[in-house]
């Protein structure tokens, strides 16, 4: 390939190196050593590498389950697998691919490459990335250990009620699924929140929104979708688990519950989930196509808007999985319209790629082949998607193999092929070695052909009436040949998909050194060496284009950027006593602060062990396991947040006050990443509350619903307390902002007392009901909503308790201000959420 515009060794004076300072900088960012160091490591490069390999291992396991299923279906009346094992395999195949492969793999890739693309040194919360990694691994293994006990889940990856309730799924299988999944999902949400904050706040100066790499845009959409889609799933699995433990009756019809509620909650997650997987893949494709066609992407704004539009519309499609459940025809019409029109933004992107290839000078290397394969297969999946988006057609092929064919064309074509394109494109950056082109091309053609051999016949099988999720079938139905062909294709596909491992091993041994930018790409990740060091971006680059390595002659500052250059001088091959990175404004990427990043620590690993122990205790309902698990979590929270010397050094070196030509240290308030993380947390909590309330309304008027409004004495008292919490929150936050210690201390103590007091009437509101949660769906909904408010008060208590410790221990320390301003957000949220709950549970029934 040709060489880019920015020379490999940038001679701009900005990049002149002070060797001693440079060595110190590398030492500060260096990897932790030894076995304990392996567990303490938090830097994005090694953590993301582990993430990538762990998720790929799950992919191979999930894929092998598919091969076993296809072997069973190769011939009629096969006894290769018994029905129960078959059910377990299809449940775990879907669960593994959806929850343990695709989402973690995307997050792993983003963890690795986003900081490199954005020109930043790490993700905003490296400890959380590490916690997410370990929690995900434990969560995945947790689900798989169910096989060891002969208790693997077998109600499908969708876990429809009543099939998944205690009556039809006795034993621990579904509990493994419920709890393990929740662990993995919480990890995914944490990672999603981190990626969102990374893109919005940690970029190179000048990388304004219109210069963001498309993959970064994709990750913004991805992260928002995760927050809004995964939360209802977690709420749903909580409800299901409570029902299974006979504590509630959300899905028990005889108590006023409704099994269809589960389908709504599941598919409100499940359909956006498809696009959650798909949108990052689109982002990857939009990164790869310009590089191999030697021109910028056609229609950048339209491609970005298409991704955002897909993100929105994907939340209006969930009922198309429920067309056959008896909803009103007009309601089906709303969802059918959205299902069909989502083809427009998808089509916009397809045409943008085709136009880019058409008007460029394509270089047919393996990544581009996989992209073209993706376009062809995905378009076919899209065409069948519009077919099943139409209600009459869907009713004909519902639950048939046609649907299996459709979604595999979408998911393998739309997600797995871009993943392979991405692996061939970015793996040289990870390993520093080029993969074999010849083997890559062989792999592409084998995968492309065998994929169509495996899955195309399923369309016909579906139209011939073969239902999905059957473990065998009778001979003479005309399905034999197509099933056999499909199985042969599946085996070839499975083996050819594994060739990447062979290629990787070959490349590690014999691959040519990749150099920093083997493809002559234009984005920043190709500026750093391959593989990138832990100490990345010793010099923060200045961005003036979407493709800086193509369009700029230097990544150093121009004369008119002298002000920015002066601002970020403390980050020039520095700091050398602690890890520092740049915070920029979200829209224009103007430097606004410096952030101190944590060093290696064991606490994320310890906390993940606490999580898995706690969940194991919940699974077997054993306090001797649950208790130590909770204790480990508690200890690791204290260890995690314990002030360290690096923070002291950063405060001393940078200070928290901005001055002329000087950036402050980001510790407290909207300038800090922690404040933004708190906002995301509250967004998640608001979504959870909205899900509970939507479920309450959905279940309304069923049997067991009270004929009159519930007693409101305790709830009214709780309302007064909640309003008082808002007032005292205002007082202490004002004290923090105006540096008035007295107001701060009084406000905090009063808030703590009120939050504690709130628990009493909130509990009283439950006892006044005179119902156990399991007595009716109504009681289940009310009690869980009240429980949610309890949780909010406890979170506030914890934050305020920490703030009080700072206010009395080290009142001038900015870290105390930071914590208090987080408590402020939580205080207002608690009051606001209780107000909503009061209106919904107590006022509306009186007005209706």
């Amino acid at each position, binding site marked *: 390939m040709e060489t880019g515009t920015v020379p490999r060794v940038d001679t701009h004076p900005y990049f002149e190196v002070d060797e001693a300072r440079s060595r110190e900088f590398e030492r500060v960012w260096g990897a932790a050593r030894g076995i304990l160091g392996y567990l303490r490591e938090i830097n994005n490069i090694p953590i993301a590498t582990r993430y990538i390999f762990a998720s790929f291992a799950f992919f191979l396991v999930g894929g092998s389950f598919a091969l076993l299923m296809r072997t069973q279906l190769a011939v009629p009346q096969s006894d290769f697998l018994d029905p129960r094992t078959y059910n377990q395999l299809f449940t775990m195949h879907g669960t593994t691919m959806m929850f343990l492969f695709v989402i973690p793999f995307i997050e792993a890739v983003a963890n690795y490459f986003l900081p490199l693309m954005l020109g930043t040194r790490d993700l905003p919360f490296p400890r959380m990335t590490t916690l997410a990694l370990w929690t995900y691994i434990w969560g995945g293994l947790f689900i798989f250990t169910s096989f060891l006990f002969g208790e693997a889940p077998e109600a499908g990856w969708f876990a429809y009620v009543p099939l998944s309730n205690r009556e039809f799924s006795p034993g621990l299988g579904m509990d493994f699924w419920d709890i393990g999944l929740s662990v993995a999902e919480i990890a995914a949400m944490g990672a999603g929140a981190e990626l969102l904050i990374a893109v919005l706040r940690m970029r190179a100066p000048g990388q304004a*929104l219109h210069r963001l790499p498309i993959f970064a845009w994709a990750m913004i959409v991805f992260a928002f979708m995760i927050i809004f889609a995964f939360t209802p799933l977690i709420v749903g699995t909580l409800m299901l688990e409570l029902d299974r433990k006979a504590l509630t009756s959300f899905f028990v019809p005889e108590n006023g519950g409704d099994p269809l509620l589960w389908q709504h909650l599941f598919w409100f997650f499940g359909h956006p989930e498809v696009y959650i997987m798909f949108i990052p893949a689109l982002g990857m494709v939009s990164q790869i196509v310009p590089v191999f066609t030697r021109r910028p992407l056609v229609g950048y*704004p339209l491609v970005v808007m298409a991704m955002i539009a897909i993100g929105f519309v994907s939340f209006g499609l969930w009922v198309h999985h429920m067309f056959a459940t008896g909803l009103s*025809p*007009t309601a089906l019409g709303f969802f059918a*319209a959205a299902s069909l029109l989502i083809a427009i933004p998808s089509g916009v992107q397809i045409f943008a790629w085709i136009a880019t290839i058409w008007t460029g000078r394509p270089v047919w290397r393996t990544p581009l082949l996989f992209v073209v394969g993706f376009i062809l297969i995905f378009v076919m999946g899209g065409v069948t998607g519009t077919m099943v988006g139409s209600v009459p057609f869907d009713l004909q092929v519902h639950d048939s193999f046609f649907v299996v064919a459709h979604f595999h064309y979408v998911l393998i074509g739309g997600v797995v092929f871009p993943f392979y394109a991405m692996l061939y494109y970015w793996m040289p950056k990870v390993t520093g070695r080029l993969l074999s082109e010849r083997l890559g091309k062989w792999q592409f053609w084998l995968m492309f052909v065998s994929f169509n051999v495996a899955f195309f016949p399923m369309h016909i099988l579906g139209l011939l009436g073969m239902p999905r999720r059957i473990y065998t079938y009778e001979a003479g139905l005309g399905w034999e040949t197509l099933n056999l062909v499909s199985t042969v294709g599946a085996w070839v596909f499975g083996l050819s998909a594994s060739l990447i491992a062979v290629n990787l091993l070959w490349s590690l041994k014999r691959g040519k050194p990749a150099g920093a930018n083997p493809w002559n790409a234009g984005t920043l990740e190709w500026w750093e060496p391959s593989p990138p060091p832990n100490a990345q971006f010793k010099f923060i680059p200045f961005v003036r*284009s979407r493709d800086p390595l193509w369009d700029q*002659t230097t990544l150093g500052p121009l004369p*008119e950027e002298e002000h920015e250059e002066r601002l970020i001088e403390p980050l020039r091959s520095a700091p050398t006593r602690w890890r520092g990175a740049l915070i920029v404004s979200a829209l*224009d990427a103007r430097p606004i602060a410096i952030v101190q990043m944590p060093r290696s620590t064991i606490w994320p690993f310890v906390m993940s062990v606490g999580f898995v122990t706690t969940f194991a205790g919940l699974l077997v309902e054993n306090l001797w396991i649950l208790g130590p698990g909770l204790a480990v979590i508690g200890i690791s929270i204290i260890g995690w947040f314990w002030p360290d010397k690096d923070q002291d050094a950063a405060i001393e070196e940078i200070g928290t006050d901005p001055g002329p030509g000087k950036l402050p240290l980001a510790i407290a308030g909207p300038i800090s990443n922690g404040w933004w993380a708190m906002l995301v947390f509250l967004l998640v909590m608001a979504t959870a509350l909205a899900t509970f309330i939507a479920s309450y309304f959905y279940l309304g*008027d069923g049997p067991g619903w009270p004929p009159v409004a519930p007693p409101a004495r305790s709830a009214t008292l709780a309302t007064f307390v909640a309003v008082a919490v808002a007032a005292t929150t205002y007082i202490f936050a004002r004290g923090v902002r105006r540096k008035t210690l007295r107001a701060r201390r009084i406000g905090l103590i009063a808030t703590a007392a009120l939050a504690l007091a709130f628990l009493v009437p909130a509990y009283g509101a439950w006892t006044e009901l005179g119902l156990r949660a399991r007595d009716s769906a109504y009681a289940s909904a009310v009690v869980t909503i009240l429980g949610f408010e309890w949780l909010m008060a406890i979170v506030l208590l914890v934050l305020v308790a920490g703030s009080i410790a700072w206010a009395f221990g080290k009142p001038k320390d900015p870290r105390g201000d930071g914590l208090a301003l987080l408590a402020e957000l939580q205080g207002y949220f608690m009051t606001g959420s209780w107000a909503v709950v009061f209106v919904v549970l107590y006022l509306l029934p009186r007005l209706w």
Partner: protein
Amino acid sequence: MVTGARRSADDPERRGGESARPDERRVGAATLLFSFLGPPVLWAIHFNLVYFLNTLFCSGGWGGGDVVVMLTALPFGAASAASGIIAYRNWRELREGRSLRVGLVETGGRSSVLLVMGVAASVLFTLLIVLESFAPIYVPPCAEVGP
């Protein structure tokens, strides 16, 4: 690679400070927000509203739900279309006011790009709002229970 097709952003003849500090006028944050996110947010509200109204009318056994659903197209469709018109007008003004240097490396600054996205969003989501509102023309509003 692309150097033949496009001049470097740092090329003094071309640059003139443009790429580091785009000289295009900035559009106000509220206008940008309405143009950029208005249509999808309007659609999301409308979608939930029509679903709620349909369920309400059907469960209450009241007539006229189809007309109410169709009427929702007016305010929401108009607002979504208006955001597109505002975005287009602002974008056109930016384009007219821009110096000739702009657009060689980047087709516009932040405002331009977000406004183009806004126009596209307006077209798509207005269409969606109208199509969904008129679903009752083609199908009965409530499920019919068979004998």
